[in-house]
């Protein structure tokens, strides 16, 4: 928008130089970027997210612990002096240690719910696994599931929503009824059924995650389709679309080259906002035991360990507060960013 103005002024000697110095020509993308950066909450969101991503994806490289490694306490009582020595071992060394101290009759037990210490920054969980390490792996699962589900829902939602909005009529009618059907099924209760079915089908826990991602995407597409359809409906009536039609451009090309780029901002905003929502739902499902299988660490699973704590919630805060806060901050970050993007893309925003 500033482009024309400045070039005209360039010819105008006495005004032009002044204006030229002050005026920075911004592309629409740069303008969005500028508005986005100015939004403090959005920037906070980006910072949290970068930190989380580094923590979850690079963090495990710096620790030799694994999400499934168990830790044990070995207690040896010296028969002559009655002196008790106690030390901790990794599950891998269990057999070696047993061999080594065979004569001293070591007392070996899982290092359960140990408080934070230098070896375990956030202590250990109900089975004696390192909470801090599991936090990293749990974050990986949450973020990966979030991104995969968003990709699936957007692929389906944009395609079907685009078709419905563009063609209208009977196609629209059928697709929108389908959207309503998916809308009418509440997600968590449906997941309960699917989980019951999956348990019966004896689907292996490792494969279960992929099913969950697919199913979540298959259910969430309805919301995307509805938004995209609404947008396409109004864009379809724009003059440039008439021009495209008059120029004889094929429908597929009109949709993908002319309409989709114009709904891109909405797609990005929905994607970001939904990422937060999906992570939240996934963690809730994992908490209820119908999401990520217990063999894999996930933030929801980790919080659900409290179910075995009865009245020692406060005592063992290190087991469930960190994963809970991780979910909160990650979802918060996505919401901040999504909101920031929405404001940044909105041309009506004056600030």
């Amino acid at each position, binding site marked *: 928008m500033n482009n024309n103005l400045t070039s005209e002024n360039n010819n105008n000697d006495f005004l032009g130089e002044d204006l030229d110095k002050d005026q920075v020509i911004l592309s629409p993308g740069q303008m969005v970027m500028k508005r986005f950066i100015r939004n403090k*909450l959005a920037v906070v969101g980006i910072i949290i997210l970068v930190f989380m991503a580094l923590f979850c994806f690079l963090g495990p490289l710096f620790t030799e612990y694994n999400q499934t490694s168990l830790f044990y306490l070995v207690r040896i009582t010296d028969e002559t002096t009655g002196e008790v020595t106690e030390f901790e071992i990794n599950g891998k060394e269990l057999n070696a240690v047993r061999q080594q101290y065979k004569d001293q009759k070591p007392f070996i037990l899982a290092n359960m719910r140990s408080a934070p210490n230098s070896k375990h920054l956030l202590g250990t969980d109900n089975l004696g696994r390192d909470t801090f390490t599991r936090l990293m792996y749990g974050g990986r699962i949450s973020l990966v599931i979030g991104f995969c589900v968003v990709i699936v829902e957007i692929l389906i939602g944009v395609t079907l929503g685009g078709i419905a909005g563009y063609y209208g009529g009977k196609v629209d009618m059928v697709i929108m*009824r*389908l959207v*309503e*059907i998916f*809308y*009418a*099924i*509440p*997600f*968590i*209760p*449906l997941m*309960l*059924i*699917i*989980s*019951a*079915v999956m*348990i*019966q*089908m004896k689907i292996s826990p490792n494969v279960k995650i992929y099913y969950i991602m697919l199913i979540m995407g298959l259910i969430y597409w309805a919301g995307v389709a509805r938004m995209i359809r609404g947008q396409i409906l109004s864009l379809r009536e724009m003059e440039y679309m008439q021009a495209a039609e008059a120029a004889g451009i094929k429908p597929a090309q009109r949709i993908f080259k002319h309409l989709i780029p114009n709904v891109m901002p909405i797609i990005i905003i929905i994607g970001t906002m939904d990422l*937060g929502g999906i992570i*939240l739902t996934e*963690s*809730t499902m994992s*908490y*209820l*035991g*119908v999401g990520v299988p217990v063999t894999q660490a996930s933030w*929801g699973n980790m*919080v*659900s360990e*409290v179910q075995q704590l009865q*009245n020692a*919630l*406060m005592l063992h*805060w290190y087991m*469930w507060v960190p994963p*809970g806060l991780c*979910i*909160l901050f990650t*979802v*918060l970050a996505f*919401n*901040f960013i999504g*909101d920031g993007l929405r404001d940044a893309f909105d041309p009506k925003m004056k*600030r």
Partner: protein
Amino acid sequence: MKQYIIRRILISFVVLFGVSIMLYTLVRLMPSDFVDLATANDMHITEEHKQKLRELYGIDKGIIEGYVSWLGGALQGDLGMSLYFKKPVSELIVKYMPVTFAVAAISLVLQYAIAVPLGILAARKQYTKTDYAITVLTFIGISLPIFFFAVVLRTVFSEWLRILPSSGMLTARATYNGFTFAKLMDYLWHLAMPITCFVLTSVGGILRYTRTNMLEVLNMDYIRTARAKGVPENKVIHKHAFRNTLIPLVTMIGGSLPGLFSGAAITEGLFALEGLGNMALTASYNSDVPYLMGFNMFLAVMTLLGTLLSDILYAVVDPRVRYS
């Protein structure tokens, strides 16, 4: 209007039909059926017995035939037998609905009572510290995992301060003759945490919505005119601006109806309330699919009712809206 409602209800039936087909197919996908499961521990059962039971449950036929007979039953209010609870599903739903409904209704009222005034306040003081504080709190509410928040509440109020019961509906050993005031208070005392949980995690959406709409209205020309005329600010906000914000808000009430019921699955499970949602959790751990299916259908009906309600309310609040 009448015609519109009738048409909408007819469309709703089509949608419900679709939902039920999807759910039924899903349920029948299971390799072992209800009877195999229910009789797994029974050593004396014969194949004949099983066949009889299958007939009883209506699963001796193929998917399509079975669906037709299920549909026939459902239309007469018979949703089949629950495997785990050993009672007709429809009876269970009627029996446990009051609790779920009470929690949902109280939460809904509280949500609006908190969200609307705060949303208006945030919009009036846009870009001030108040606005930022409300916005950040709203986002925290939206992003807060409900199960985590429930554990936090329980730790603080029942483990540390010891002022609220951690779960259940009534004090275990108390006996009440009939429905007295004391009993009501006991219920409320037990429901305090679940309701707080519910309200705080879902108040954000409404608040955000109120703020956005209020901002939009406050930028309208007629608001400027009112101010220029010298109408007192309070009157401008409450009489001129708020009434127009009300329109989208009212339509949201209908939309939040199904969420209140489906969200119950989590809250009720967390606080061991005897409602539909908690039953659904138990049912899912025990593969009690007839109950789950009945519950889901119930929720689907609620969702459709909710959208219909919001569309009708829309026309009621906004006289410009005419359906034909």
